[in-house]
């Protein structure tokens, strides 16, 4: 029991430290400098747009495209988020509409019988 306790603490500490490492790397590299290198401040301005769209793909990465329902619930829900956000520009509403539809679709039309 005692050994278990120490193992868990060690594992948690490692995960926490490595996570902190990944988050702080750019600050270790560039945070100490008075003037940011040109390329870094340029990347700071243009990279977020690229990263955000990669994150969307990342969130949808486990969608099964080759098996039923072929990613249809995801596709329809993404379409609803885009449409609602395009016309109402309300983040809250867009999330509720998309997530609501997704939850309904995966429970009814596209329910995977297990």
């Amino acid at each position: 029991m005692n050994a278990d306790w120490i193992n868990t603490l060690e594992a948690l500490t490692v995960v926490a430290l490595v996570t902190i490492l990944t988050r702080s790397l750019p600050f270790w590299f560039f945070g100490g400098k008075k003037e940011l290198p040109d390329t870094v401040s340029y990347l700071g301005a243009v990279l977020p747009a690229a990263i955000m769209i990669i994150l969307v793909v990342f969130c949808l990465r486990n969608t099964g495209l080759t098996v039923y329902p072929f990613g249809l619930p995801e596709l329809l829900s993404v379409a609803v988020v885009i449409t609602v956000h395009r016309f109402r520009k309300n983040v809250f509403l867009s999330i509720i509409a998309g997530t609501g539809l997704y939850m309904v679709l995966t429970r009814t039309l596209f329910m995977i019988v297990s």
Partner: protein
Amino acid sequence: MKSFIFAFKQAIPVFFPYLFIGIAFGVLMDEAGYSAGWSLLSGVFIYAGSMQIVMVSLLTAGASLGTIALMTFFVNARHIFYGIAFIEQFRKTGRKYPYMIVTLTDEVYSILCSIDYPDGVDVRQTDFYITLILHLVWILSCLTGALFGQLIPYDLAGIEFSATAFFITVCMNQWQSMDSHLPAIIGLISALSFYFILGPSQFILPALVVSVLVLIMMKSRSNNQKKNGSLDLEADLIERAEEISYEC
């Protein structure tokens, strides 16, 4: 106070994914036989949703510390690219600087890069409040899952889509506020290409690295063409830099 209310409003959309993922993590920990204290500690000191969930399976599998370190690095490596946009902004936060760095999650990152600060709101205070509020929501969610997760009578499956939905709205807001859509297009193309080449579990790092490289190449090309007038991208960069210095 105005800054706090504004910060709270910005943070609300992320409450859903945080609650869901946090509770899911707490339930998994509880089912694996770890007491609520461990979930609490993870929420406070790790604060990384997908990694915490991966950690549960590593714990139950009895993985070695080396494996755990490597796994954590690969699951969270995307974070290396996040700080680049906030070096200047966070440096001005003084004592809060280290805290702002270690709490830069996917969701905090996406809020901070699409936020539009109104007049009379303190940029540094707002960033800090958003970070703090969401950290607390996360900690509470992990703890709730561990303590009461088994009691929740509803099946919440699918609510994780709220994170995707939120990121899509951030993309759309950025799309409208940026003069150049090239960075987003480059990101999408590289993400999809690597997704189809390498599959769902390995595509994100190459996609990020290639996007960075392509964007840097575009910059050096635009520098060469500078004599012919500045490109959209640079105009946008200068505009944003001015905006930030004005607000601080």
